[in-house]
């Protein structure tokens, strides 16, 4: 059950700064826990950024991205009220999706 993301989209003219905070362990699969057992890899692999249903960014990321990922993107040609949707899919098949309107 994935935690919701926090998206902040700030319009400056027709450029939009997007900041998204995600909750995810981004476990590398190379770490051992306090009992000495290897913590299995668990990380986001794919993510998409869509504006009004159209994909504008596709990201492939790896376990090298830090725990609780924070991304910043820049969109152009958007206006207030446009729908921004960010989604991710991890290596275990878990997904998360959050929508917000550009303010």
């Amino acid at each position, binding site marked *: 059950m994935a935690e919701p993301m926090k998206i902040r989209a700030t319009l400056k003219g027709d450029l939009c700064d997007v900041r998204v*905070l995600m909750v995810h*362990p981004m476990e590398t699969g190379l770490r051992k826990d306090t009992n000495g057992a290897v913590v299995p890899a668990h990380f986001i692999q794919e993510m998409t950024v869509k504006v009004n249903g159209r994909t504008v960014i596709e990201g492939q990321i790896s376990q090298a991205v*830090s*725990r*609780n990922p*924070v991304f*910043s993107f820049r969109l152009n040609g958007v206006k207030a009220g446009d729908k921004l949707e960010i989604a991710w899919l991890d290596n275990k098949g878990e997904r998360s999706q959050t929508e917000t309107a550009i303010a």
Partner: protein
Amino acid sequence: MRLPAVFLLVFLFAAPGAFAQDSKKEIEKYQRMIADSSPAELFELQGEELWKKPQGPRKVSLERCDLGLGAGVLKGAYAQLPRYFKDADRVMDLETRLLFCMTTLQGRDRAETTRTVFGTADKPSEMEVLSAYIAGLSRGVKLAAGTTQPKEKQAYALGKQLFFHRAGPWDFSCASCHGEAGKRIRMQELPALGKPEYARPVVATWPAYRVSTSEMRTMQWRMNDCYRQMRYPEPEFASDATVAIITFLSVNARGEPYRGPGTKR
């Protein structure tokens, strides 16, 4: 001041002036950049939810908790802590006050509530998320820990005494590391917290998200962990001692605009 040999070695690392200045600038750049892309806000959101959640035998939320500015008033509340509370007849920092509200308002058992006050990367504690939320609502507010009430003055004096008191198997005090300006442990600059100039930026940025452990950490945790690092016995959560040291630091930092929750290594 007698120090274990190993620490003397560390303190003796002398970089030529220009290189040291460049390193300092780059580290400041690191600190700025991580503060700008920090997961800290996620904990503030979790804290907000928890603040409003009915819990305990009385099944009430913490929303009527008085942090010093009136029941449920959160804006600016963190900045004026620690302070004296008449209903408890004690000086309290945020976490001590939250514990008070959990036990009195919500009817929760103290032992049970304090069992996990410091969380893990997978599961932050209630104190951690609540602290992040409440502290965030003091952004921009000048730090104003209480100084006029007699018990507040006593807490400051006790905190100062504890800050300089050497004990434990290594004969350390807080001042062993934080007593002199311009000192460093490895790449970590050590603020001389007895002086306002150094206390201000520190108190203004706790609680903080620690990137090295992916955890939101609070001032009570900082006290606990410093004591651990000095090989002292573990201080009790929300004890007079921890509140006193936090008071000492917070009063030293008075006037600084609060800008947490912070993000630190």
